[in-house]
């Protein structure tokens, strides 16, 4: 039951990625796309967590940890670019 639940969870989360990809393509504005990617990283973090538990392996959690930090760096950079037209 547990494993079925978790596998379903993974499938569910991939489904949750569809809107993200849709927004990345559709936009219509750049900020839409940026939040779509940002949301996608959130979904990926969730998947990593679940997967980590499914596999019983802490290693994937490290990836989740890194991703949860690093995606924010990217988003902030893009936002600054969108706002000011410069990065540094």
């Amino acid at each position, binding site marked *: 039951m547990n494993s079925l639940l978790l596998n379903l969870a*993974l499938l569910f989360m991939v489904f949750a990625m569809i809107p993200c990809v849709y927004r990345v393509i559709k936009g219509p504005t750049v900020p839409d796309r940026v939040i779509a990617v940002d949301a996608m990283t959130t979904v*990926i973090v969730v*998947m990593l967590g679940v997967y980590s538990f499914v596999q019983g392996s802490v290693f994937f959690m490290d990836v989740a940890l890194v991703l949860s930090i*690093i995606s924010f760096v990217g988003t902030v950079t893009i936002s600054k670019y969108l706002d000011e037209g410069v990065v540094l």
Partner: protein
Amino acid sequence: MDPFNVITLAIFLPFIFAGLIPAAEKILKHYVGWLAAAVALASFLLIATVLPHVIHDGPISGAVPWLPSVGLDFGLYIDGLGILIAFLASGIGVIIMSYSNGYMSHKEDLPRYYMWLLLFMGSMVGMVFSANTILLFIFWELTSVTSYMLIGYWRDKPESIYGATKSLIVTAAGGLVMLAGFLFLHSITGTFDIPTILQNEALIQTVKDHDLFLITLVLIFIGAAAKSAQGPFYIWLPNAMEAPTPVSAFLHSATMVKAGIYLVGRMHPIFSGTDAWLILVAGTGMITMVMAGFMAFRQTDIKGILAYSTISQLAYIITMYGYTTYQHPGIGVAAATFHIVNHGTFKACLFLVAGIIAHEAATRDIRKMGGLWREMPITFIIAVIGALSMAGIPPLNGFLSKEMFYESSVEMGAALGSPYTILIPVIAIMGGVFTFAYSIKLISGIFLGKRPKDGLPKHIHDPCATMLVPAAFLAFLVVLFGVVPSIPVHNIVEPTASGILLEPVHLHVKLWHGVTTPLIMTIVTFILGILVYSKYDALAAWQDRFNARHPRISVNYHYDAAVDNAKTWGHKISSVTQPGTIKTYINAVLILIVVLVCIPVILLGANIIPQTLNFDIAPYEALLMLLMVVAGIAIVALPGYLPAIIALSALGYMVGLLFIYLKAPDLALTQVLVETLSTIIFFLAIAKIPQKFKEKIPTTTLVRDVIISVAIASTVFIMLINATQGIVSPFESLSHYFIENSLTLAGGHNIVNVIIVDFRGYDTLGEISVLCLAALGVYNLIHSRSEEK
């Protein structure tokens, strides 16, 4: 001293002193020319000491190892033919270098002049004594280069440059062709060594019977013809007259052009006695003889006359060497050899006279001269001796070899039978007629008639002894060899002819043989010659009309067209092949990839779809892959930079997720980090690159690009599904070792990390070097404009 060492010394003495000339000039000032002459004399004497050995014992060989790995020695083969040409080179060298002391102004760049002269002389001597084809080729090309340098001696004059270029292209290219011939000869005989072939009759027969015989002969003969200005390759010689006159006398009449003759003589034993040889060599010779004779007759520049005359005279020799049949391999050899000597003397003499005239009269155009015999009587006498010898008037040496030429022509015609019995002597006479005509024209144009009112300097007189004595000495030889032919015949012509025919030759050359067919032919020649000379204007008018109507008949026309347009054409072609658009280049690579993968498929008739296709996959992975493809489409389809980059970043994160599914946490970590960083760097860059340009893809381009992309995708797909069929049994992966030993030997649980820092840490060292390179490279990129501003 051992003859081998003597000849080696004779070859390298000029080379050594050529190197010393610039230093010597510091001490000797303008007397440096006498040093050069002394070197030439030394070489001459050294060669002379070997002559008795050769006359007595026959050819001498010797070798020291040079390139043993390819079977090449520094080998010398000293026979009569070699000594003959070497005598010409060194002997006339002495005369020319002495003469140059008077001819060359002291302000000229004398070291360079004498250096190249000596280098040329050494190369010439080396060439004729080379025992193997490669050594011969080396010295051969050296004569081309030195000749090029001497023709271009006045290197800021466009005419010099033109002449030098032409001579280099024709002779050196001919040399390359000849090299190919030599290499064919090597592949046939298995040796580069000429004496080895000459002394082995069976081997010579092998050559003659070989499939590659004809091509070998043609290639080698092209080299010879190019060097001796025969056939269509004559074009360089007239332009080579831009060289200082002593150079022309030395290289372009007496010696270098004899290199081709030498080669024909050298190859004579191997190739002669075949139809190909006869047709090629004698045929080329006869055509050249007549045509060049006619053109010499049409020239108005003294050196022009002499240049075309040289071509024509050389054609005599070539023709005679060509006179062979299966039964009589060597009808004209002796005559040809004698003519080499004679032509060397009278032509060099005439060139020196031309130099004197040009020096004194400040022009070489015979139309601007006339009646000079009063002012320069000694020169006149010398010129007359030279010209009459050339015209074939007894008792001068030119007469003797001309007689022999006619004799051998008759003999050859007889050997071939009708219609050649008549045809060949007639052609020979035609050659003689023009020779006679231009010889007379030369003398009368310069010395006879009336002195023109203007255009000539006031005071014209015989030159200083430095210039006169060498010419006079040559004139003396002309007379001497004519009156006492046994001196050259016994000492040099016979050994040479023996060397070529590979059997002892004994000649009986006399001034008076009685009334023979050749004598009658000679008389006919004189009569026709005078007739032609008197009809100059009509002939000239006819030729001008003809040439105007057929400009393409001229070889020079084609040469000029080729060389002038070479740059334009080269640039046109390179503009097409290298259009500057990177897309073309990328397409080329992509198409090559597809083609290279297709080749084995076609050749092996391979089944590109493997037996097992595995579609077993968890649904969430399949969905993820679908999303990745969709993201890929987004990257392609989104026109703006930002959307495309963001889509790329989305794809990157999904790749990271896929790595998770592929059980690669390290990879996933690296992937997401790198993805973020490269997105940042993308933004760093495009922050400075506004998107002004939006590509509108035309349908044709779209179709083409899609086809290429699909081709690449299919190629990769097919490669990949085949490659991932699993490791071929019974092989196993290196990874076994890593898994087994990662902890025990390298002390790490994370096998991937252990591989990258330990098992294959060296790769990582390279990888971090790449990172440093990127950093330093960016620094260079950013700072690359500082210099300009």
